[in-house]
């Protein structure tokens, strides 16, 4: 359940990364709003994905 929630949050983070640039392209938002949303997307992604993505890695 917790993992699913985190994955949904990560998806939101990715959407906040890609969608603002599309909205900027179509003139729906301005440059500043785009940049702010993408920064929030980065915070949401790193704040959530680290808990379910990136299992143990071999050091070879």
């Amino acid at each position: 359940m917790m993992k699913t929630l985190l994955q949904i949050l990560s998806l939101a983070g990715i959407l906040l990364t890609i969608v603002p640039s599309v909205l900027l392209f179509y003139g729906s938002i301005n440059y500043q709003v785009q940049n702010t949303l993408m920064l929030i997307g980065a915070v949401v992604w790193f704040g959530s994905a680290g808990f379910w993505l990136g299992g143990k890695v071999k050091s070879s």
Partner: protein
Amino acid sequence: MKIATISKKLDALYEFDREPVNNKSLQGIGNFLGSYAGEHVAGTEFVIGMLFVAHGVSVTDMFLGGLIGNVLAVLSWALITAPIAVKVRLSLYWQLKKICGSVLVFMYNIVNALMFCFLAGAMVAVSATAVGIPFNVEMPTLSDLYPSSTGWVITVFVVGAVITTFAIMGFEKLARFSKVAAPWMFFIFVAAAIASFPRLGVETDLSNFWEVARTKIWNGTALPGQSQFTMWHVIFFTWFANAAMHLGMSDLTIFRYAKKWQYGYASAVGMFLGHYVAWISSGILYAAATSDAPGEVAYQAIGIAGALCVIVAGWTTANPTLYRAGLALQVASPGWSRWKVTLLAGLITTVAALFPALVMKLLDFVALYGLILIPMGGVIFADFYLMRKAGLKDYYAERMNLNFNWAAGLTWFILLAAALLMNRVAGVELYFLPLPAWILAVGLFVLLSKFYQKKQV
């Protein structure tokens, strides 16, 4: 240092993978898809796509040449590297040691370590171009080969110190961080490209995309001071950007865990996400920017998230690279602990990073890196497929208890000398040398082995 000591230290370093991988340790296709997708969306992608634009690649060269080069790279992994890996199931180190002997492998390790340091250095410099933005550091331009300002030197030292400290602290957590960062970085690349469309004048229905791409991005004319690239450059660079890994056989270490050789095709994910979409994306955002520094270019497109991506991309590429360099150099150090060796590697890396040439000439460095290591891949290929057919012994160093297989050593040295001559005297560009070097290595190793093995008997 005595040969026996070198050999003992090398063996201890790679002790955990001395035996061929057993059936229980084999991994599914998902691991390979994830690994390649993560590894090939990296800091270098920001620079390579940008440099293609600077070298005057045309839109057809970029899209068609990139496609052909990437297909050839994937086929190299799938048809050359993976089949040997799943039959032998040994890491590159042990495979090479059986063929070449301890001393030659030691030399290979040191060369590899230095190459790793320079590659990590390029990534430190890439990160520094983003870290320096809030401090108004004067960024290097395409034509800068030497440190351009005091601010640049300080920034590079700070970034180098931080990256070295993390590499000393360990590898595993950072590798996990890289895995988490990779998908986000890919979307940042794509988003930054889309965000650059309005500045390039792309219509919202994309009707003029090709026209803009042809005239404003990949316009076919090199920037002043840059050599002119053709489709051949794009094909060969793209094919051999990871020459050390596929035809050079470094990825034997990865594919020895594959259930089937067909898993070699998993490399397509890394190639087409990283070396196609990401290169195209970084070309687009460079064309829309007013700077040559990757951090500044990404910042202009999408603000802080872009600069952050450049820092993360540079960092996640530099750290494992620095860690591996430390491992390789550890063998040559007189009993130093891991942290001291990594500190030394970090110092070499940071000093190298001071020179913007490493970033601005990254295409040449990547080609050189592949060229230097690729002949040993040809040696492994020949040993696996041709030696017994030619009536010769494979794994000759192991069978004869040799520390230095001269047939392999001479193959490497002769081909590197020949490549140097071709480049310096005949003017053949570095990008076109790895393929003949690999093919000649296969033939030369068999030929030299005929004499060498006869002499030994």
